[in-house]
Structures are given as structure tokens and as C-alpha cells.
């Protein structure tokens, strides 16, 4: 698919839905799965699909994202021709802070215009999956579509649909209607915030959007344009974790303790690449007890860990017990600490004998860098 499509990643979309995790970072740089950031999945999927030009749109809080991406060499996107482009605000005289998706795209019009590919793959960072974009692209081309929406069928409760967009379609997959936050429970084709768009179509709607001051790609273009444009859906059948609330973030991490999901997510259409940190391998002492957990490099485990995801460089002291928790990079858990249903951000220090407990439906979140 090399050359046929290029990628645009929105690193800041939906920041507000997990505001706890994004107070110091973008959605794209939220840590996940012991050693990754969310953007690793969409970037690796693009690389594994043969895409060699990717623009990453940033809005604010993106220093950690820039540090993570570097020159893009971990995703083989450090290239003379094409490669990785970070597209920050104020990069050009015309561009200020973006208000919405269309605004951001208008800000990078010359980047879009210069690309020689016919198709654009646009994606947010809130979906975690292993996907080969060649498959929806084939479908897009066969359908002669203007836009192809990548969807996954999911049951929606009325309580838990915030931000979800359901795509109604005919038998041929042509989208006839968009329903925001579906009001009735049921099975819906929910968009994964990934679209394949014809480049020339995109350039046209950006012209239009600029003159009419449209902001929302979904509301103003797709929802209004179901009749006018050829919008198709493509069903993704694999695993798709979604990070829309801190509860979902918790469960999507816990999903990794299922070996089928791990196997699919990390290997199906190619590897998931991330920044190399040169940690030592994890070390377990005589007193360690570990079960059903994912543990990254650089950890020192002397206590008990169960049903948890432990990021790089975490230490768990003697007598400590970590259950049903997510512990991010560089956190130190002292002796005899007890944790249950807790999400601990980076570089936290939990002192001797502390006990922290959340619930399955309401995991406790501990802010980056604090001392408890």
C-alpha cells in the first residue's frame, strides 16, 4: 500500500474525556500496557500497513509526545523522503490554536496538498487495536467511496455512550445516518474514530468548511452529507479497546491479561513499536509472588503482584501487595503497601504500610509525581 495512502493522526482529540491522564500530556502519549503510549498502536498499524508518510497534529501539552516520537525512527519513519511530521500549532503564519478537527486540517492544508497519495487515513489515538489498513482501503476503493468509516459493532447501554457515534447503513454498507450518543440500548456500528478519505474530497470539504466556518467533521460533514457523499462503513472484527473514560482505560489495560487479546494486539498484522528505554530486565527476589500480571523491564519485584499491569522501572517492596492495579513507569511501592483497584501515574512514591483501595467500577487514580 506504500504510496497509495498517507496518515494523519490527531494526538489531542478526546483529551477531555480522560482529563485525569491528560493534564500533563496528550491523548496520544497516555501510557498503556506496561511500555507503550496510545499513539504507538495507530503509528505501528500505519507502518505495518506500508504507510510511509504520517503527520501528527498536536494542539497543546505535546512536549512529552515529541520526546516520545523523536525522529520517528522506532516506527521506521525517520526518512529523507516522507516519514514522520509533527504538526504543531503556530507552525505557520496562518495557523493558530485549533478549535476542532476541521480547523486542524485547515491548518495543515499545505501538508495535505503536497502529498502525492490519493488516500488519507485519519485516526485518533483513543482506539487500541492491531489493524491492517490495507483491508479497509481495498473496500474503500471497491466502493468508490468518498469516506470510509471504520466501525465495530458493539452493544450500547444508554448510560455509557458518551461520545460514541453510531453509523446506520444499508446492506451494501453505505452510511445513511449518523446517531450521536445513541439514545436507545442496542447493537450499533460504532465508529472507531478512523476514516479513509479521498485526498481530493478532503481538500474540497476543507475549502467548504473554511468558508462556512464548519468545526466538526462528524456533525457538519458526515452527518449532513450522508445523501450528498458516498460514505461507507467498514467493519473491524478484531479486538478494539477504547479509552473514553478512566474506567475504560482501566479495563482496556486489564484486557491484556487475556492471552488471546495479547496475541492479537501485539502480533496479528505486525509488531507494535515504541520508544526504546534501555532498561534492565525485571528482577524477582526470593520473596516475590506474582500471578496473572504483565510486568515490564526495569522492575524489581520483592512483594506480591496479582491481576495487574506494571510499567517499566517500578519497584514493589517486600510484603507489599498490588492487586487489580495499573502502576506506571518509575513508581516506587514501599514495604507492606496494599493496593487494590488503583491507577498510579508515573514517578509516584507510595510509602511504607499505605493502603489504597478503589473499586472495579471506580478505580482510584493517583497523580503523576506525587508522594503518598
Amino acid at each position, binding site marked *: 500500500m506504500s504510496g497509495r495512502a498517507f496518515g494523519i493522526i490527531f494526538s489531542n482529540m478526546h483529551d477531555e474525556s480522560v482529563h485525569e491522564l491528560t493534564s500533563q500530556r496528550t491523548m496520544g502519549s497516555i501510557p498503556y*500496557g506496561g511500555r507503550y503510549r496510545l499513539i504507538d498502536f495507530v503509528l505501528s498499524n500505519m507502518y505495518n500497513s506500508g504507510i510511509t508518510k504520517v503527520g501528527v497534529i498536536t494542539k497543546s501539552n505535546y512536549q512529552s509526545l515529541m520526546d516520545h516520537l523523536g525522529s520517528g525512527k522506532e516506527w521506521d519513519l525517520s526518512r529523507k523522503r516522507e516519514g514522520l511530521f509533527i504538526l504543531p500549532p503556530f507552525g505557520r503564519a496562518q495557523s493558530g490554536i485549533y478549535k476542532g478537527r476541521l480547523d486542524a486540517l485547515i491548518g495543515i492544508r499545505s501538508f495535505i496538498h503536497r502529498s502525492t497519495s490519493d488516500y488519507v487515513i485519519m485516526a485518533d489515538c483513543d482506539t487500541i487495536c492491531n489493524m491492517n489498513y490495507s483491508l479497509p482501503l481495498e473496500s474503500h476503493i471497491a466502493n468508490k467511496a468518498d469516506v470510509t468509516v471504520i466501525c465495530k459493532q458493539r452493544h450500547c447501554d444508554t448510560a455509557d455512550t458518551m461520545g460514541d457515534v453510531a453509523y446506520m447503513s444499508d446492506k451494501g454498507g453505505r452510511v445513511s445516518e449518523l446517531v450521536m450518543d445513541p439514545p436507545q440500548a442496542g447493537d450499533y456500528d460504532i465508529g472507531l474514530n478512523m476514516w479513509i478519505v479521498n485526498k481530493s474530497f478532503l481538500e474540497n470539504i476543507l475549502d467548504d468548511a473554511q468558508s462556512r466556518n464548519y468545526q466538526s467533521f462528524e456533525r457538519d460533514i458526515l452527518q449532513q452529507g450522508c445523501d450528498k457523499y458516498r460514505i461507507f462503513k467498514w467493519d473491524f472484527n478484531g479486538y478494539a479497546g477504547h479509552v473514553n473514560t478512566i474506567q475504560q482505560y482501566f479495563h482496556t489495560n486489564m484486557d491484556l491479561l487475556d492471552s488471546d487479546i495479547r496475541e492479537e494486539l501485539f502480533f496479528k498484522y505486525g*509488531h507494535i513499536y515504541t520508544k526504546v528505554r534501555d532498561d534492565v530486565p525485571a528482577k*524477582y527476589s526470593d520473596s516475590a509472588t*506474582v*500471578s496473572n500480571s504483565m510486568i515490564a523491564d526495569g522492575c524489581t519485584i520483592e512483594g506480591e*503482584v496479582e491481576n495487574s499491569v506494571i510499567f517499566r522501572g517500578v519497584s514493589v517492596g517486600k510484603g507489599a501487595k498490588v492487586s487489580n492495579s495499573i502502576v506506571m513507569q518509575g513508581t516506587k511501592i514501599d514495604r507492606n503497601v496494599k493496593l487494590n483497584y488503583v491507577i498510579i501515574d508515573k514517578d509516584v512514591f507510595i510509602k511504607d504500610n499505605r493502603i489504597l483501595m478503589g473499586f472495579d467500577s471506580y478505580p482510584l487514580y493517583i497523580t503523576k509525581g506525587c508522594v503518598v
Partner: protein
Amino acid sequence: MYRKMESIAMLLAGGEGSRLGVLTKSRAKPAVPFGGKYRIIDFTLSNCINSGISTVGVLTQYQPLELNEYIGNGQPWDLDRLEGGVHVLPPYQRRRGADWYKGTANAIYQNISFIDRYNPDYVVILSGDHIYKMDYSKMIDFHKQNNADCTISVIDVSMEEASRFGIMNANDDGRVYQFEEKPKKPKSTKASMGVYTFTWKTLKHYLELDEETGNSQNDFGKDIIPAMLANGERMFAYPFEGYWKDVGTIDSLWEANMDLLKPDCAINLYDTSWKIYSRSPVVPPHFIGSNAKIANSIIAEGCTIEGEIYNSVLFHGVHIARGAVVRDSIIMPDATILEKAKVQKAVIAEDVEIGAEALIGFRADEINKQSFGITVIGDGVHIGRKSIVMEATMLDSDLPEVKAV
């Protein structure tokens, strides 16, 4: 076009490493995996960049493919430099003919033009098969202060061990007056670590001289050092303190891995100011299953552990099935140990598969395990179900399944 470098390093990585047996059948010794995520050469390359030496020539000739690929452009060690950086230097043909490297000194001799490009004042000669952390810049400072022609890094060994090493006999000021290769009655316990700093002008002169000497073995220890001593050059012993181990044999390789498991491990890999760099595999963190037991072990990323691991070092991508027991062993990348297999005091090389209920490192008496010999299973070997491999065996071919009669 070349920028002058004060010091450059030349790393001798050409030896066959035959004492490592099946582990070096298809790879050079410096490429042998070590410590859960490293290769032996990572220690020397990381020492170089951490010491501020960013120009490194790696002299290879035996099975260099895997080593070349591993070193690549040097990026993992920050040695992908605009000028300098890491260069792999195989032997090559000239118009007047072609020679393989005849000895360590000849390997350097054949690359004089490479070294001369950078016009260095000092050349540090290193081996690719030692595990240690050393700041070469301190040794170079010592060399400069002494206005030395050659500085040999030495480490204190016990008197019993001394006769296995090259021993430097030096005055109180560190000046070496005698060098004895594996002396029966050692006069000192200062063993050469095979780490030298030379003033390049002097070394070049002796390399050229050595080439003209008909019966020379073209070796640093056997020829160059003695010749320089005989001529009264200023040679000094630089005392190194800290962990240092030559991992040229199966026993020493196994021991050095086991050293990492000691709580008071003498080589601290957690020190972020002196990181040991390596080329990282692209795998997720490891997963420990519900029935696993792990004690006193090192486990790298990408492993799946459902069985029991005691006192062992596991590299990335290893699978240990339920009920399997691994004890006092080194399991190299992507090996698989199936259900209820038992592995003890063994080195399991890459991509090995140990069948269910197989027994690796077995001895009938099962007493005094300390005295067990180390069992080695070579790369890619498949051990069939219920097969038994006796202790102290080195195995290079598949074993079939043992069927019930």
C-alpha cells in the same frame, strides 16, 4: 574530511570462541546473549560511549553475520555518529593479495589506514568477551599523566588464579618491568585484563616491526608487549577495581549470569549514569500466569511464564508452560519449555524447544547439585517429549520423543 579524535577504540571480536562450543557454532563470541537482554559486546560498546569514546573499530572475521546485523549502524549505543561511530572491519583483499587476520596484532596492523584517518593520539585495544563496567577515560588520563607508551589495565586476582592469567610485574609507581604469560610461580597477582591504551605513534611502529619479524604470532600478549618491554618503553599497569569477568567458557558464562542474581551483585546494571545499552526486541512486557512461581530470577520482556522459575535468567520471548520447572539455568531468546519439562543447571540456546516431561541436566544420583556439570542445548535444537539429557552434555542435534513401550 576526517575530524581528529584524541582517542579511538579497537575491539577485537574475531576469535572463534571454540570453548563456548555450540553457542558459537554460527555466531561470533561477542554476539552470545548475556544477562537476559544483552549480548556480550554490549558491555564493551557501552563502556566506550560512556567513556566518551565515539569512534570504535570492531575487528571481525569468524561468523560475523549475526554480530554485524546486531551492531548495525550503532544507534542503540549512540554510536551512529556523523564522524567516527562504530565500524565493523572484516579482512579484505588488496591488489597485492588477501590475508585473513593472523593474530590480534595483525588485525590492528591490517587496519592502520582506518586508524590513521582519525589521527588519534591514543588507541585503546579491547576484547569483545568481557563483562565489566570501566571508564576508559580514567585509564587514558593515567596513561597521559605517566607519559606512557602503553598502559595495561590489571585486576587483582587470587594467587591460585594468577597462573591462569598474563601477570604484570610492576614497580610501586606502576611501571611494568616484567610480563609473564600464565606463570607457574606468579610474582604478583596483577592480571592483565586484555585492555590496553597505546600511544598510537609507538604502537604503529611496533606493529610494523612485528610484521617484519618472521616467526611472530602477531599477538599483543605474546609479541607486541614483550617487544616493547625489551626495548624499555614506558609501560604502566593501571589498577582496575570492580567486577570483571572473562566469559570465554561455558562455566564462566554461566557463573557471570548467576552473579547477576546475587542480591549484592558486584555489577550494578541499574545505574542510570552508566547504562548498558543493547538492541531491544519489539515485544510486549512479559506475562506471568496464575499458576507460575518465580524466585530469584531475571526475566526479560516478551516471555510467557506459566511454570516455575528458580534462580534463572530468561531472555526475551521465552515460553515456560504450566508445570515446567527451570532451575539454575539460562534460557536464551525464543526458547520454549513445554509442560512438566524439567531443566536444571543448563544453558538453553535460542529457539530451542524442550518437549513435555523432558528432563534436561539429569544425574542419576541427584545429590550434591553444586557439583553438577552444565548442560548446553544448541540453537534451534528440539528435544522430544520425555527425552532425557544427562548433566554436562553439550547437544547440537534433535532428540526424538521417547514413546512408551
